[in-house]
């Protein structure tokens, strides 16, 4: 049974999540919903609980209290592998690509395609992987110098874009991006944001973006959740807010003023 809000279906719902690390309350009764095809931004100061929340959703941590629902069903992850299996992928900036492999081998890494399935010796179908990776990147308007170029020669934005594309290619349903543009220049940032825009148009993946940079987030998300000291401080639709508005909410929140 999918939970329906209006006519939008909830892809993920995290309900009443609490998590303590020793005496530190990292998360205190947090509830967030990610609708299908939506891009949700999670912002907040350092220590607000953004990373902890996302690590719970991606299976790195287990919550002390609270439930996670995926497409209406209650789920529980004991490891990131379990989360990935049902389609929740996390994109890490530095870990993502293998420098010494070509772009297409990176996209197909650990999901290689073989030339006819012979039982004992299986040979890679490099041509097929190269062609389908090329078409797919073209579809998503991701520009790379050459599909058989080593990942080493790619720029930061290209790397990020390819890591994202790889997850989508293998039918991730929920993409979690932790500071996707943090280390990128203006042009490179645009590259990643353009890709997010493209994915939004396609609508078959729901995205959570964690970010410090409000300006970037605002441009590409549908909704923003503001966390402070492990609690949800406020929630705004992008259309109804501005950077100034959000900055004020966050700074007031930091001073402990109710909004």
């Amino acid at each position: 049974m999918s939970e329906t809000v209006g006519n939008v279906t909830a892809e993920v719902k995290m309900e009443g999540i609490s998590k303590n690390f020793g005496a530190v309350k990292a998360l205190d009764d947090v509830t967030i919903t990610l609708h299908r095809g939506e891009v949700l931004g999670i912002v907040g100061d350092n220590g607000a609980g953004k990373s902890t929340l996302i690590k719970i959703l991606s299976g790195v941590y287990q919550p002390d209290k609270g439930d996670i629902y995926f497409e209406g069903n209650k789920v529980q992850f004991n490891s990131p592998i379990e989360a990935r299996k049902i389609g929740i992928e996390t994109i890490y900036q530095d870990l993502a690509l293998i420098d010494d492999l070509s772009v297409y081998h990176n996209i197909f890494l650990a999901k290689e395609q073989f030339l006819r399935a012979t039982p004992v010796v299986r040979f890679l179908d490099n041509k097929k992987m190269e062609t389908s990776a090329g078409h797919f990147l073209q579809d998503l308007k991701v520009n790379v110098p050459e599909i058989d170029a080593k990942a080493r020669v790619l720029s930061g934005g290209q790397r990020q874009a390819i890591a994202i594309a790889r997850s989508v290619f293998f039918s991730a349903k929920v993409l979690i991006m932790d500071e996707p543009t943090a280390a990128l220049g203006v042009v490179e940032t645009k590259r990643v944001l353009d890709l997010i825009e493209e994915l939004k148009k396609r609508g078959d993946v729901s995205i959570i973006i964690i970010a410090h940079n409000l300006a970037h987030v605002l441009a590409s998300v549908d909704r923003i959740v503001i966390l402070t000291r492990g609690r949800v401080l406020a929630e705004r639709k992008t259309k109804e807010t501005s950077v100034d508005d959000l900055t004020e909410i966050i700074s007031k929140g930091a001073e402990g003023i109710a909004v």
Partner: protein
Amino acid sequence: MREGAVVMVTVVMFAVFTSLNSGFFTIANSKNLADFVVGNVAVAAAQVMLMIVGEIDLSVGQVYALAPYLMYMVYQQSTIRYGLGFEVAIPVAILAAALVGFINGVVTVRLRVPSLITTLGMDYFLGGFIIYISHGEYQIMPKQEPYTALFGGGVISGIELTYVWTAAGLILLAIVLARMRHGIWSIATGSNLFGSREVGVGIHRTKIMNFILASVIAGIWGIFIANRAYTFGAQGVADPTLGGDTLTLESVAAAVIGGTSLLGGSGTVIGALAGSLLIAVLQDGLILVGATAYIYQTLLGAAIILCMALNITARKWARR
């Protein structure tokens, strides 16, 4: 091209030795060169596979000596007791080699002992073990066809079978690297360990496989070389002092000279071949011009550093 430096240095050395001694650039001498290369290029290529995953095996030279000696011993025992010879002795010797590689691999990836240390320990352990079981004396290798011929004692239309196996082995490894998942996973594991694990590459399995591969190749080629004398009518010998640390270091040298990075993620079979050839040219050329063995070591040392420096400089230029 990564192998550019070693090819350049080899060509220069070829020219130098040819001008110094008219006997160098001859058919007879190219056989000498090939004999040297065929003895250690397969081990060098296996070392490359290990260095691609960011590991090293310093015990290959001892396995190279151990396998033929074990084969001899098992042959003696099994012929007396069960009337069986190499059909038991060869599998036992190869399995023993595989076991050494498996232990090297498991200790390295599971107990997280750096492979430099794991295999250094294994090197000493096996070195002592071989001397212990052989009392340091060589033995005549028994002859039992077709096994003797297949494992290095045979000649086919004028060409030693060992050459055929070596060529086949190198081509196979090159295919594994370029066209099989194990090759891609090896590069991925050596290039970005955690990133590879993150997307589901079996990093431990890949490393252990390459440790086993290196050991098995060293063992089999040790057997080939032990049987070699049968190709020209003499008797093969299981010599416990064959291979050893000299072979180990030459395999590492050939890999490094051929452009394999110690940091993992890169390396080629062609590089191992070029590296082995360079070492062969150096060793053989110096013998022909009448230099002493010490000069060989000195120049090999210089060649290793020169090739490495050229490789790094070439890569810097390529990036511009």
